[in-house]
């Protein structure tokens, strides 16, 4: 939090996250997915767009293990990834 004592300048107002706080993964249940995601990030020079499917896997793992409130992935911005999957499944 910025504790600037400047009179008149706007100070930063932290906002609470939209969906609340992540419960801590004490047992490391999703650690594998997290490691996969980090490896992907490092390989793609930290470009987030290339590792979106790994991040989707991580969030799905969290939802399965009750570490995150279950929510349709479209609402989390993965709509394009979900749209791709049925297409690949059809092909198979």
């Amino acid at each position, binding site marked *: *939090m910025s504790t600037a004592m400047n009179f008149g300048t706007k100070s930063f107002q932290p*906002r*609470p996250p939209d969906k609340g*706080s*992540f419960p801590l993964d004490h047992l490391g249940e999703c650690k594998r997915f*997290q490691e996969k995601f980090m490896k992907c990030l490092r390989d793609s020079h930290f470009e987030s767009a290339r590792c979106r499917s790994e991040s989707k896997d991580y969030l799905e793992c969290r939802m399965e293990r009750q570490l995150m409130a279950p929510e349709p992935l479209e609402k989390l*911005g993965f*709509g394009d990834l979900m749209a791709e999957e049925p297409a690949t499944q059809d092909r198979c």
Partner: protein
Amino acid sequence: MGGLWLTAWRSLELCAGRWGRAASLTTAGLRLEPLLRPWRSGTRAPDGGLRRLGTWGLRSQARGLLLQPPRRPKSTNPFTRAQEEAWRRRNKTVLTYVTAAAVAMLGASYAAVPLYRLYCQTTGLGGSAVAGHGSDQIENMVPVKDRIIKVTFNADVHASLQWNFRPQQTEIYVVPGETALAFYKAKNPTDKPVIGISTYNVVPFEAGQYFNKIQCFCFEEQRLNPQEEVDMPVFFYIDPEFAEDPRMVNVDLITLSYTFFEAKDGHKLPVPGYH
């Protein structure tokens, strides 16, 4: 001082008694009286001056001032006197209106603070210029692929908290309108469970308004057992309107900074109305 002279004149007059010159003495006194009292200027009605001749004590002078008769119109002509009365009345009305307006302005400036707060509550803006975001917006937002923004991560701990807290990636390249995941790692090297609570800061300040966190680990107490190490994710996105804001044209770097504090019992962080 002048009063002494006048009493002298008066006593002379009394002593003179039947002298013919008594009358002339009093008239002389009357003529001299305005000169003898330099601290009282202005014209005066003739009888008012004589009345003060015998009462030259300080207390009675003050009483004389308080019991002053109301100010008489300057002219003796009845027509102009009526006009003067009308002007005086009009001036008084105008003065009353002006004073009332000044007081009303002062009151309005004081009332503006709670009124604005009420307005913010009813419209739901809550002090921020950008309206609230819903999950529908996340669903429908289109990434702006030609605008790449570098987000760097920073981690701090308060001096009294003995955690090892650091980001797992130093930077990440995102585009507005696309959700992104980032990780921090925290380890408790002590032998006691420690509860921490964190807050965040985004630099630059104006870009912070477009930085939306879907889920993170801030503002809630997080407990770490002894020698435990956990991954803390941050799931966020940058509002696609960021690309359309003219003030953000030169902004290519956003820094997200988290600070962990130790949560003591009874110690409340100023969290922003969360839970």
